């Protein structure tokens, strides 16, 4: 369960203070399938960075599974990201000239306590198979299509069995057919494995796949709007 209380984030640009988040309170239960929408500049990326423990809020409280993570230092946040959160990015962010399999294995090397290579490999093979890329696992990202690359990235995000999956515009670089494939994959993961999936997007079609849409505007959450939107789009 993720809980945010009065989260603010202020960037200091020289003399000027630039508030980006102006008091966000939010609760996402385990197993939810949520989208975070909003226009650019609404603060959704900043909120996502805080949710992903990449950034620290300026003030407010933030719990993941009942643990206050607002005050964690860089190393503690790194460990938390490694063990609890899986990331999927818009531009896939796969390691170039590295096989799909090794890309999937990479986060597991930072897992603590360290696991054996064969164990990691077996788990990665399982995930590669899950995303349907078994016969392409030795291909490098350059040899894969955009959709395939994103599927490798999803497999990578799952290697450490995270409870939360955070996807930043996962369909932003994909055509509509592959977008649907990828979103279906997220939904399956949410439904079958009970993983909390949070998708940051500005695209209503993508947001429509999720159960709940959280709409942000100008550093605040506008409740309710997205519910109606998703309801209309689902029809």
């Amino acid at each position, binding site marked *: 369960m993720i809980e945010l209380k009065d989260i603010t984030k202020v960037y200091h640009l020289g003399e000027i203070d630039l508030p980006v988040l102006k008091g966000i309170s939010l609760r996402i239960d385990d197993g939810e399938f949520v989208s975070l929408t909003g226009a650019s500049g609404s603060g959704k990326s900043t909120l996502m960075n805080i949710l992903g423990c990449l950034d620290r809020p300026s003030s407010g409280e933030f719990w993941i599974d009942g643990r206050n993570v607002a005050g964690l230092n*860089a*190393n503690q946040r*790194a*460990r938390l990201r490694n063990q609890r959160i899986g990331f999927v990015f818009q531009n896939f*962010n796969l390691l170039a000239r*590295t096989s799909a399999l090794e890309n999937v294995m*990479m986060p597991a090397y*930072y*897992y603590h306590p*360290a696991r054996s290579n064969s164990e990691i490999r077996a788990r990665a093979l399982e995930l590669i198979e899950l995303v349907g890329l078994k016969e392409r696992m030795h291909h490098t990202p350059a040899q894969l299509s955009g959709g395939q690359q994103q599927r490798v990235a999803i497999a990578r995000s799952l290697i450490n069995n995270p409870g939360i999956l955070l996807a930043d515009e996962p369909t932003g670089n994909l055509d509509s057919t592959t977008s649907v494939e990828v979103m279906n994959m997220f939904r399956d993961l949410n439904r079958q494995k009970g993983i909390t999936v949070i998708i940051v997007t500005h695209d209503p079609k993508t947001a429509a796949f999720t159960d709940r849409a959280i709409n942000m505007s100008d550093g605040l959450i506008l409740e309710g709007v997205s519910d109606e939107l998703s309801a209309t789009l689902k029809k």
Partner: protein
Amino acid sequence: MKIGTLLVTCLKALVRNPMRAALTVLGIVIGIAAVVAIMEIGEGSKKQVADKFSSMGTNVVTISGASVSTAGVSSGMGGRASLYAEDSEALMRECPQFVKAASPVVRASGQVIVGNQNWSPRSIMGGNEHYLSIEGWKVAYGSSFTRQQVNEASRVCVIGQTIAKELYADTDPIGQDIRIKDVVFTVIGVLEAKGADGMGNDQDDCIMLPWTSIRTRLMGASGSATISKGGAANSASVSSTDTFSTSAVNFYPGCDLQPYANAPHPLRTRTVDSIAVQVIDGKSPESAMDAMTPVLRRQHELEPGVLDDFNMRDRSQFVKMMTETTSTISSLLIAVAMISLVVGGVGIMNIMMVSVTERTREIGLRMAVGARPCDIMWQFLLEAVLLCTIGGFIGIAMGRLASSIVSEQMGWPVSSSVSAMVLSVSVAAVIGIVFGWYPAWKGSRLDPIDALRHE
């Protein structure tokens, strides 16, 4: 991250860009190769010098009488005939932990005759049965003189290669007669060649006798000359050996000289010119000298406060001085080679900086999925160290190749030096750490959010 995985990750990162990696390590390779080649050549020439001097007998302490001055005229070192053959035995007896062997040494000079040939050897030396081994001589064929022959003052001698060549030409000298200052000796052995000493003197132009034989049978032994130079006090006693000089008064007219020469001399024959002491391997000559001084003082019954009537010199000092000259030159060259290593290190740093910038996205991703700043730091540091160490090993191979080419083409002596290899690999690793540290640190300081967005 486990060290093995980290190593594999780094290796893969290097292999991904082999040309760049090769060019980057080139600086290190050249630097290390230069260091190794110079060290091997330096080591070789140092060894050559040491070999040359060890043929003169290393680890040998020479004890000579102190100087004596009469009426303001100083005799110089060894002027006082204060050393006795018994001193040599006392040293062996009382300092067994330092003294491997000790021998009295007496010198003589004069003409030797074989058949119708004659020759004036550069040196005629007398010692005991240990003398040849102390001085680093080996007997090529025949044998050395024994303790019994020393005690009996036998008329036997061992000759150097030059003497053998000059006087015996192609015939076997063993068992042949040789007349040394008109006394007939038998050649019992021929020494192995030593060649020239450090000063260019022919060491093989020598004859070795039992010291007792010189003292009792040869006239004009150096003892008399030295002592008479030294002072009147000794001249009377020593003049007995002058009996055989033509100018001396003949106290026993009608006496046949030859039987007299054959009989051991009772008077003051036991003073010796010097004592050569071989120090046990691994013991320093200085410590041996410290141990021997009280023994000699006791032997000579010197009261406390009285100056030593002898003088000790360590021959290895000379060898040290010569090897130091060569090592000074080679350390100078190594310093120059080290500069090229530093230049190579700067090259590594440069490429690592580029690599960190180039892989900013990768760093951001690794951080996002859970790499701590120290993990990133280790990754890049290890990459730099790996690059340098690989360069170090290639450099060693190149350096050895270069030194073997030099030794083959120019005939310079080379000697493989393990310390050079260990040193250069560790220097390479240290360079990797020093020059890889800053880029690695910069990489680890990146903000994952910015790094992920980096284009």
